[in-house]
């Protein structure tokens, strides 16, 4: 297709090798929920199970030393992937784990009455609820940056929402409902002008385009391995080193302390180890490293360009359909949010599933957003680099017959 052709990578994904759903070839358009895994990632995980099982950083065996080195090397891979230093990479259970660690370890410690957490109304629950609790416990307050009519965050609106009370600006690099890219570098500069730290929920951004922490001036970044072709159960909190050093861990226990005594005195290990109490999902972290390498081999620029071209194609074809309304025609990423006229989102989702198309209906964990869009929910198709124009055509054909009657028929 078009200018960039990534279809050669489809063969790397076992899930794309002839799998069917409800009797139709599977069209996987639910990549914002989770992505498919390439053979390289699957093999890395299997290899740990079949040939490398051992705990890391605490064994005397040669095997443990070998796997520990691989495990630590993932920090280097991730550092290269997002443009930071390896010791600024903290392993977490995922984006949600990272955001909770940030709220708990930074928010609870440094916020107090009179402080403001600045965010938007289109955040995922994982970037709101931990901060609600910080507010409840510290007396800080939430403030929401107004969105444009389209649903975008702009530098102007961030600036007009800033004052000296704002201590943290936290928002999604890409909204999981509308797929818009926030102007991260500009927002980082504004936040810093006011002495605030800038945290990015990168769950929907990191898998789709290149982010460079140092160049962009981002202070914290959270993301999940499973949304970038890696295993679930693993993720990352990146933090600028001096901020991580000041922060408290959310969990305490084995592996995070250098020593402790019977009187309760604890000496924590250095960053990032002090945040990683207990055995981490070792195979998940190894698989996450393989995933980041895989994406870098393809090239994030190519992935971004291909996705944009594919989504523009899908939107153009959707707009030819009289019964479909697209809410984010101009977004930059693979998220296409729409409704089928007269068909409740969940009915449309089930009907499309009966035609082999996996996508998602609902509020997409952003429960404040329906007020903004003025609909109870939407259907979301989220594309990734292994999707094709032909798959978009399959969706278009299915949408042509997506009526209430047909949606009810799947229950008969």
């Amino acid at each position, binding site marked *: 297709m078009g200018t960039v052709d990534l279809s050669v990578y489809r063969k790397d994904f076992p899930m794309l090798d002839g799998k069917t759903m409800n009797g139709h070839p599977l069209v996987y358009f639910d990549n914002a929920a989770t992505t498919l895994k390439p053979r390289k990632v699957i093999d890395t995980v299997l290899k740990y199970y079949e040939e490398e099982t051992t705990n890391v950083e605490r064994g005397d065996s040669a095997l443990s030393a070998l796997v520990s080195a691989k495990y630590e090397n993932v920090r280097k891979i991730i550092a290269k992937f997002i443009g930071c230093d390896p010791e600024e990479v903290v392993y977490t259970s995922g984006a949600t784990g990272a955001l909770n660690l940030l709220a708990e370890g930074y928010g609870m410690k440094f916020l107090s009455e009179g402080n403001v957490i600045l965010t938007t109304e289109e955040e995922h629950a994982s970037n709101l609820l931990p901060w609600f609790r910080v507010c409840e416990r510290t007396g800080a307050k939430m403030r929401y940056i107004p969105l444009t009519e389209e649903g975008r965050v702009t530098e102007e609106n961030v600036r007009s929402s800033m004052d000296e009370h704002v201590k943290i600006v936290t928002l999604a690099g890409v909204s999981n409902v509308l797929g818009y890219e926030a102007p991260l570098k500009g927002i980082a500069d504004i936040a810093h002008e006011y002495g605030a730290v800038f945290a990015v929920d990168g769950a929907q951004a990191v898998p789709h385009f290149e982010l460079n922490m140092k160049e962009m001036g981002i202070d914290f970044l959270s993301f999940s391995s499973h949304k970038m072709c890696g295993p679930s159960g693993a993720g990352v909190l990146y933090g600028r080193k001096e901020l991580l050093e000041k922060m408290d861990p959310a969990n305490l226990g084995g592996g995070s302390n250098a020593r402790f005594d019977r009187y309760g005195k604890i000496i924590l290990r250095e960053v990032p180890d002090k945040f990683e109490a207990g055995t981490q999902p070792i195979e998940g972290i190894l698989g996450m490293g393989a995933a980041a390498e895989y994406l870098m081999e393809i090239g994030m620029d190519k992935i971004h360009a291909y996705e944009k071209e594919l989504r523009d194609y899908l939107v153009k074809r959707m707009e030819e359909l009289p019964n479909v309304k697209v809410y984010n025609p101009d977004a930059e990423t693979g998220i296409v949010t729409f409704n089928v006229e007269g068909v*409740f989102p969940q*009915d449309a989702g*089930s009907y499309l599933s009966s035609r082999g198309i996996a996508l998602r209906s609902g509020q997409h964990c952003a429960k404040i957003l329906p007020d903004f869009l003025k609909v109870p929910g939407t259907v979301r198709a989220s594309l990734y680099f292994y999707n094709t124009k032909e798959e978009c055509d399959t969706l278009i054909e299915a949408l042509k017959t997506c009526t209430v009657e047909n949606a*009810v028929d799947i*229950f008969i």
Partner: protein
Amino acid sequence: MNSMLKDPGILREIIMDHYQYPRNKELTEDKGYKKVHMASDSCIDNIYVQGKVEDGIIKDLRFDGIGCTISTASTSILSEMLKGKTVEEAKHIMQEYSRMISGEPFDEDLLEEAVAFQNVYRQPNRVHCATIGLHGIERILKGENDDE
């Protein structure tokens, strides 16, 4: 059972009719009602169910809110079917309905139009749509009231 209720066209008509023209879909301010809020965190369905029980008889059942075809139609049908029944009769019908939705054998004659949902169990991620109204009515019969 009425053989018409085996005809797919008729089953579809029943669901469509109760979705497009739901019965008892309006709440009341009248006294003596209990009201429960039923919302699912995994989908968009968000309804209120209201009911009045006197002397062991279900005098009225109502609902309102946002729901898909299956949740709206099933709540509409259940409200029609259970109104006027004794609490004991209603519980029996609801039990049979639950069996049907779980894909177990059930008493077809007892369920009347609700047999339109006999195949919902084949769509496991939609089962909760067919039971949101049911669970609301169960809560009302237990005497729960979210307004208190």
